[in-house]
């Protein structure tokens, strides 16, 4: 390795590659319902649905496991901590922080998904002037910054 010195890397900076990097589908695709726009929307929807279903599964697992546990292991329903039955602790108090925690986590993640998607399709620094040199179908429309009826 040392004898040959550091390996040289050739970076090809082709014009179309540069374009591809910036050429993510944007709001125009969503509006005009192009193939890219539809794919983009569907992937966003799937991400939101996945998050919701993950949190829902977690909540259902936590809740649904207690009756099964109590039915299979009778000791659980007769147990008590400092004189208070475990069932009272679980059903009366312990579930609520879990539910709140799942809800808090979901809100944070859902907000982040929205922010990331907004950044993807309508980055704040992408000005209408810069996007005008690309094909009109997939560029950010200039008219966005104007009132809709203008």
């Amino acid at each position, binding site marked *: 390795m040392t004898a040959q010195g550091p390996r040289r890397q050739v970076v090809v900076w082709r014009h179309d590659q540069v374009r591809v990097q910036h050429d993510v589908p944007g709001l125009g695709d969503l509006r005009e319902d192009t193939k890219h726009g539809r794919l983009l929307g569907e992937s966003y929807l799937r991400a939101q649905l996945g998050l919701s279903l993950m949190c829902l599964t977690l909540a259902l697992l936590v809740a649904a496991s207690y009756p099964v546990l109590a039915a299979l292991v009778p000791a659980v329903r007769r147990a008590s901590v400092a004189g208070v039955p475990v069932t009272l602790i679980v059903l009366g108090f312990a*579930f609520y922080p879990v539910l709140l925690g*799942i809800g808090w986590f979901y809100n944070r993640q859902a907000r982040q998904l929205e922010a990331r998607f907004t950044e993807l399709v309508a980055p704040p620094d992408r000005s209408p002037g810069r996007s005008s040199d690309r094909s009109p179908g997939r560029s950010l429309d200039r008219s966005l910054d104007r009132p809709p009826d203008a």
Partner: protein
Amino acid sequence: MPDAAVGAIAFVTLLTIMMGARGIRVARTTDDFMVAARQVPPALNAAAISGEYLSAASFLGIAGLVVAQGLGGLWYSVGYTAGYLVLLLLVAAPLRRFGAYTIPDFAAGRLGSAGLRQAATVLVLVIGWFYLLPQMKGAGITLQWVLGTPYWVGVVTLGVVVSCNIAMGGMKGITIVQCFQYWLKLCAIGIPALVLLFAAGHSRALAPDHSPEFTSATTVSLPQATDFTLRRPAAVTVSGLLDQRQYRGQRVVLCACRHSAGAGTRISFGTGAPVPVSLAMAPSSVSSWDSPFLTSGTNGAHPVAATYGVIIATFFGAIGLPHILVRFYTNPDGEAARRTTLIVVALLSAFYLFPAILAMLARLYAPALYLSSDSDDVVLALPSLLLPGLPGSILAALVAAGAFAAFLSTSSGLLVSVAGALSHDLLHGGVAAFRWCAVLAGAVGVAVALLIERFSLALLVGWAFAIAASSFCPLMVLGIWWRRLTRLGAAAGLVVGGGCCLTAILSTMLGAAGGGWGAVLLGQPAIWTVPLAFTVMVVVSLFTQRTVPGNVGQVMMRMHLPEALSRQAYRVP
């Protein structure tokens, strides 16, 4: 003691009417009436939603059920709270972004079908009225307990107050009223629970009593005919009908066996006598009060399956409650709808700590309360039983006021949505039609409520949840997340799911359920009607793919994209 409670109830009612009356000046257009012009901040809105949601079942019903049937009754409070988490996860933000007033509006707007709107409207009426009944019953037994008036007086009073209030004020007034009523309810159940817990002596462990005894000489009055058993023989004094014999204050030794008492019988037990167990609450109260399973409405058959039935109904039912969804349109945007819902989960969690504490105290220190087969007045009766004298009276007045606040707020919300569905979707009328529909809907509620006195509050509300979970829940969830839903699929799911669930519940109410699996499947039908409704909707939709609405892609994106983005993308004003 009744004076303080009467004063407190009158105060709450008057305050509600006055705050509602303020709404008259503010409410000008149909939009104001229906959703308070969408200008409500999250914290206020969350308290209003909770105030509307915490009904007679939460305030009186859960504690009553737990006292009578065991800790499994707490599944209702867990489920009522988790229902909001499920609502947050699946529908809160998209529904707000969709921007419609009611579930029928959503159904018609998403799937473009007038027929579906009519079907959904009918279901709103069914669920709304079903949910209204326990509120009316709660008012009936509260006034019965406070004033000694007949059951119908409380029912009619609540009906008149709420109908007139809604007809005059609309929802703008109601938002403020509902918010106030959440905090009133929290105080009215929290303060008595904590004071009584402290008074009962916090050093004594809250152990369940497997063989309860009377700790002091107690006279038990049985308002209805009741069958009960004793685990040990006991010497008692009886007036009234017992075991087909009429007594007039004679001393009798009752054997350790089954007895049946007529309505109005009074039995005096001495100190150390065993507490009789009412057969109406058997079997769970006999042996395992601390069992985590539910047996209400199923005659005690297959408790684990019945418990899952309640879990499914309550977890998925909140999505389909018509009076709750309309509240989400009062949020300014989808993000605010999410924040509001999370605050609601927190507010509900705080509230539901206290029915459990009260039920525990009642079970430990007031065994006479769970003899009567109607245990829904436990929360009302407990303060004056545990704390004699003035402090007990004050707490009892507070509880009565909170209970009345619960009936007022929930039935207000229900009447707004029932009257809204009648006037907006069936009659296509304006504000005047809305006022008349409010009065009409209240009158129908009162009439039916007079017939359902014998059903437990928690059970009745649980059934309303089951119907909502097997009809509107699939419609909302699939409508929001599945673009291939068609109007025929949705209609078929609503009719089959809601119809099966309603039929099962009505057959249980009419006593046709019997025992065994039949009792479970008819008494807690959500366990099969919810999956059935989802399946029917999906299968029928897949067979009718030609009728998928053309604008579905855009509608889906508008529901799920943040407002700023969809405004840019679709130029929605």
